[in-house]
């Protein structure tokens, strides 16, 4: 197949993945401020889109991890071809759409890595080459951050929640002013959206750069091109704006009910963890970090309960992502190996799945209009245990 055509196809697919990534991840930044009423849903989503756009311009470390580190190129490894990247992307996108439909906060990043790794393994197997994956890099920059980041964020959010409550606690029963954290949440959630842009938009930039290098259109190890940064930033911002209502439902309310002080602590912890990780080039999953923070901050509040069942469901979604996307990616790579016909089959099947899922999801469409009432209803159905009074009795003033 014509090289330029396949490169264009891969870039288009990568940008579409970027779009679904934003679509999937609006909730990371904006579920908590919407849940506490710090921002109106519409405002929250617009803000998230704008800040993702800005964040995408702020760093390229993660893009370098992807384009330069994970899959060995040339001698000793598989010669990564645009066809394989194409197959990997199909795997990632299909898995992203499925989890979006089920309302599971899976990880777009792991879907991407899973798809690419699956495709590369099949490519190596067909070529009879050795192990194409640089497992040392995969372990230290993808798998370990994936396992550690949610725990890290959870611990930090737990500590921050304790701090926020301890500092503002009043034992004399007078108003404590914790409402004021709603204002802070506007800023902290914006910071999460910004951090998301610095980490997630990078992943697509990395893939496009990898494709350009593989096709010989860009020297290996060079910087990300300017037009790649701009298109990726726009794609993720558009995706963020268009989507996420379904996920907002799971992350913001199903998990634990959120109070302003707690939401602020969780968002600050999320943003700090993601920003610090982007800085050292860890391609972690922003979704998992956000979920870890929400759980951690929930545990930091007295008398609040995390619903472990929902938390477990989310955990299973995380664990499944890498192998599941890998399987789809591998399958797509097998088909793509058949040549032009294979690529066409892949494209048709991939687009078919996307359109099918989209049409199916529209049958029970959830938009910001009906989510509001639905969530409010379920909120009333849940018995919220009131916070127990502070144990220390009155401090006479």
């Amino acid at each position, binding site marked *: 197949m014509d090289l330029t055509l396949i490169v264009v196809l891969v870039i288009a697919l990568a940008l579409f993945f970027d779009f679904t990534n934003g679509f999937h991840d609006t909730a990371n930044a904006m579920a908590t401020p*919407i*849940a*506490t*009423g*710090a*921002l109106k849903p519409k405002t929250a989503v617009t803000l998230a889109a704008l800040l993702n756009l800005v964040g995408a*311009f*702020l*760093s390229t470390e993660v893009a370098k991890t992807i384009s330069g580190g994970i899959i060995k190129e040339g001698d000793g490894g598989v010669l990564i071809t645009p066809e394989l990247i194409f197959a990997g992307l199909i795997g990632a996108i299909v898995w992203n759409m499925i989890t979006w439909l089920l309302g599971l906060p899976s990880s777009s990043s792991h879907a991407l890595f899973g798809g690419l790794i699956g495709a590369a393994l099949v490519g190596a197997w067909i070529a009879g080459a050795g192990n194409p994956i640089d497992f*040392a890099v995969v372990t*230290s920059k993808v798998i*370990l*951050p994936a396992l550690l980041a949610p725990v*890290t964020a959870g*611990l*930090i*959010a737990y*500590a921050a929640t304790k*701090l*926020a409550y301890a*500092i*503002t606690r*009043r034992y004399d029963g*007078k*108003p*404590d*002013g*914790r*409402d004021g*954290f*709603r*204002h*802070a949440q506007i*800023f*902290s959630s914006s*910071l999460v959206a910004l951090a998301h842009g610095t980490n997630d938009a990078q992943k697509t930039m990395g893939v496009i750069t990898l494709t350009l290098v593989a096709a010989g259109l860009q020297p290996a190890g060079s910087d990300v091109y300017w037009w790649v940064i701009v298109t990726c930033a726009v794609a993720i911002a558009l995706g963020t704006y268009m989507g996420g209502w379904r996920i907002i439902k799971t992350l913001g*309310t199903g998990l634990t*009910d959120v109070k*302003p*002080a707690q939401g602020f*602590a969780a968002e*600050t*912890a999320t943003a*700090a*963890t993601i*920003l*610090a*990780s*982007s*800085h*050292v080039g*860890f391609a972690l999953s922003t979704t998992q970090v956000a979920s870890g923070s929400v759980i951690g901050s929930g545990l930091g509040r007295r008398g609040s309960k995390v619903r472990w069942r929902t938390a477990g469901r989310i955990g299973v979604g995380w664990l499944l992502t890498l192998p599941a996307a890998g399987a789809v990616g591998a399958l797509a790579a097998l088909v793509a190996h058949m040549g032009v016909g294979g690529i066409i089959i892949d494209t048709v099947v991939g687009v078919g799945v996307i359109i099918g899922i989209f049409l199916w999801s529209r049958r029970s469409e959830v938009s910001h209009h009906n*989510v*509001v009432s639905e*969530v*409010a209803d*379920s*909120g009333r159905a*849940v018995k919220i245990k009131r916070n127990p009074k502070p144990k220390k009795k009155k401090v006479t*003033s």
Partner: protein
Amino acid sequence: MIDWLAFLLVFVSALIGTAVVVSAYSLGIRLLTASGRTPIVTPAEFTDAITIVTPAEIKQAEKRAKKAAKKSPLTDGQKRAALVGAWACFAVSGVAVLVGIYLIVGDHLIEIFS
């Protein structure tokens, strides 16, 4: 090689950053309340399991805050000092965020705009 130092660095810097930002802001709220200006911020929209607050309840909360402020044992000077302190804390919180962002992406930004 797994770079454990990088993990430690991420954890420690995120922990310190979060602690500084959250403590400063919380202290700001505490001082603002002490100065007799308890912030009453109603939700922008009752989207979630937020207990719906009626306008009457909001007024009640404001009244309670005013009453508490009147009973405050602090002198006017102390209240003024608390107010100044509150804004100083909010400023520290905001500056900490900006410094954090600069530390992380500053080099890159300088590269872009130079």
